[in-house]
Structures are given as structure tokens and as C-alpha cells.
């Protein structure tokens, strides 16, 4: 497994939002699903199975970890498992943030030049 965050970039939109959703702290599956929908302004609307496909992959890559004691948000009828970013996951998210920032900066400059 590669431990250099650059290796994991660029992230897909859904992966980026899942990691971003976990940036403030641990969450269970349903909370991630809702958060991703809100963060993406309803553009990324994950189904349960798609969410867990991504979660499985992120667990395999070591970007998130599973906690069996349940998060603070677990409620009645909810399975007591939650997810949290690993150090590597956080570094990957930060690296993606820097990459996106660079892209936005370049785009802004070029668009200004074109508009001038």
C-alpha cells in the first residue's frame, strides 16, 4: 500500500465528499449519506450500496477506519458502527484540497486574463 497521499489523487467527487464528511469527526453510514448530499448541494446522492462500496474501498486503502463502539450520532435501530478518518485519509484530503485550490487559482487567473 502506498503511503504518499499524492498516490491517491485525484479523488472522485463521491470519495472527496465522503472524506470531507468525516473531517470533523466520526459518523455512521446514514449520517455520511445525508452529509454528502448536503455538502454537494444535492448533486451527489449516494445509494446505500454505493456508499458501502466506497466505504469498503476506503477501508481497504486505509483512508478511513471502522469503529465498533458506535458514534455519538447512533440512534434507535441504527447499527452501532461508525467511521473515522485515519491520518493517511486526512493527509489525502488535505492534498486534494491543495490540488483543487491550485486548479481554482489557475482557472481564476486565466479567466481574468481572458476577460481583461
Amino acid at each position, binding site marked *: 500500500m502506498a503511503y504518499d497521499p499524492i498516490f491517491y489523487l485525484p479523488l472522485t467527487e463521491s470519495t472527496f465528499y465522503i472524506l470531507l464528511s468525516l473531517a470533523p469527526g466520526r459518523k455512521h453510514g446514514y449520517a455520511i449519506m445525508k452529509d454528502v448530499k448536503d455538502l454537494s448541494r444535492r448533486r451527489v446522492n449516494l445509494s*446505500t*450500496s454505493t456508499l458501502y462500496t466506497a466505504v469498503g474501498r476506503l477501508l481497504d486503502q486505509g483512508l478511513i477506519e471502522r469503529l465498533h463502539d458506535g458514534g455519538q450520532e447512533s440512534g434507535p435501530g441504527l447499527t452501532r458502527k461508525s467511521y473515522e478518518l485515519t491520518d493517511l485519509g486526512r493527509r489525502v484530503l488535505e492534498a486534494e484540497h491543495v490540488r483543487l485550490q491550485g486548479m481554482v487559482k489557475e482557472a481564476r487567473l486565466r479567466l481574468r486574463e481572458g476577460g481583461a
Partner: protein
Amino acid sequence: MKSLYALLLYLFPRTYREEYGEELQAVFNLSMDDASAKGGFEAMSVTLRELRGLPYAILHAHLRERRKAKMAGKFASRFDFEPGSGKETFAALTPFLFSMAMVLFGYLARHWIAPIWASIAFVILFWSAVLGLFLLGSAKGLPRWFLPYLGVLLAIASLLFFNFLVNLRLDVWWHRSSGWGDDFNFGNFLWIGLILLVFLLLAISRSVPRFRPFYQRLRDDWPLLSFLLYGTIPMILWLNFDDYVNEEPFFALSILMLTLGGWFYLRKDKPLNRFMSLQIGLGLSMVTAAAGKAALILWSRSQELDFILTDELVFTLETWLWLAAILSLPYLFRLLPRAELPSQTV
């Protein structure tokens, strides 16, 4: 809808279901409860979204499980050849079959000038197959089919040992000193070296804890060691046919006889029958070699025909007797007192 989703979860691989099934169902239930509270349209939208995502997720989960199984080495179980099966027979007889193929290929290449790429491809194929099966047999804990491969190694080691003695000029010393050379040819040290190596192999497998189960297997089923030693014979035959021209058809036929002996060995149940299969294979192989040599000498119309013929036939007979004796060595296991050894996996 929740019950239907529970049923659909059975389309995921079992291990995936055990890992995520409960969570998938719980999250789906919450999504449906939330959507239902917002009205029929939202519930329909969530249902469609869930059904749309399922086929890809199921396919992905199956691929993931397959990949995990490969990484865990489960795929290697297909190489656990069942004793007596065709695969085991093929794997066990590969050193003989490939030696035969190499000899014939060399003959054909010399007479019909095979293109260089064909020769290279054949040699690469030969060594890849033998090396691949050798590594597999080592990884699989030295199964029965692997023993002739160890025999090939033993033959190479005994040749190196013999070569070492010759390099020390011990052969010259042997023939000069006190007339021993008249009664006992120095060439017989090849056999003595082989016997010493067999004892060394047994001593190592007896004393190294990791290999003790292998030693115990050899003791419990003594013809196994004979089968291991049987693997040395193609190399010995090669030495026997050294200095001949156009010997390949007879050489290949001799190896074919050995292959037949090995084939019967793998199909017999009783130890004595298996041992006899090897001895008969060896006998047929040596008779073929002797007949081949006689034919080659007669065709060569040499000046010293009678002398060479007698000398070569005596040499072949000596080889046969030595090999027959060496193949019989494992029978001594039956005379040893039995001792309990800790069982471990090799």
C-alpha cells in the same frame, strides 16, 4: 420494500454480507423511513436510487472478494494435486517427460536445423515449467509428486561431489596407490557420493524440527524415498550415454521406460508393488540403454568392436546394479526401531 431489500442483500457474497449486511439494511431502513415521512414521491425516488445502485455494488463486491481470495493465496489450492489423480501423475512425471522431450528436441534440432527462436522458446518453456513446479512443490510441503525433483537435485549434487574429488586429483592417486584401482573403479565414488547424500538428506530431515514430518513420512511409507531416488536416474542415463553419437532415440526410449515405471508407481497402493514398479521401470530402462549402446557400437564398425561392446555392456550392468541397490536402500527403514516424533506441518 425493506423485506425485498433484505432478500436482495443475498446477492452479495457471503463474507461481504457478514461484514456489511446489517449496516446496509439499517441505513436503507433509515433512508426509507425518512423518505416516507416526506411523502410518496420522495419514497419512490429513494427506492429507484437504491435499486439503480445495487447491480454495480453487487458486481463490485464479488470482484473484491475474488481479489481478496487471491491475495490470501486461496487460488493455490488448485495445485493441491489429489494422490493418484492425472494432475499429480503429470506433475510427478514432468522431470522424465521433459528430459525425454529435451533429448528428442536436441536430436531433431541437430538433424533438421530448428530455427533459433524455436530452440530458445523450447528451453525457456522447459526451465519455466520445471522451475515453476519445483517452487510450487517446495511451497506445498514436499508432496509425493515433488520427490523426483529432489532426486534431480540429488543427482546434480552427487555429480558436483564427484567432480570435486576428480579436481583434487584423487582419481590419479587412487589408481596409483596399492593396486586398489584394479578391484574398485574410481567411478564408483559417484555412487558412494550419492549414498552419502541420501544419508545426509535423512540426517537433516531427522534433526531439523521443521523437516521432521517429512522424515516421518519417508519412514512411514518407505517407497517414497525410492521414488525420490528414481528422480536421479535420467541424469545417470545421460552420463551413461556420454560420448555416443546419435544416441538420442535410445536415450529417449530409456527415459520412456522410466516414465512407465513411475506411472505404475503412482497407481499402486501396496508399498511392495510400488517399489517393484520402480525396479521394473529401472530394469526396462537399463535393458533399453544396453540394447541401444550395442546397436550404436555395431553400426559404428569400430576396430575394437568386441572390447568396446563388452566394456560398455558391463558398465551398463554395473550402473543398473548400483541403481537397483540404491533404490532398495529405503527398505532399511523397516529395520529401524520406531520412535515417536512430534508432528508438525512442513
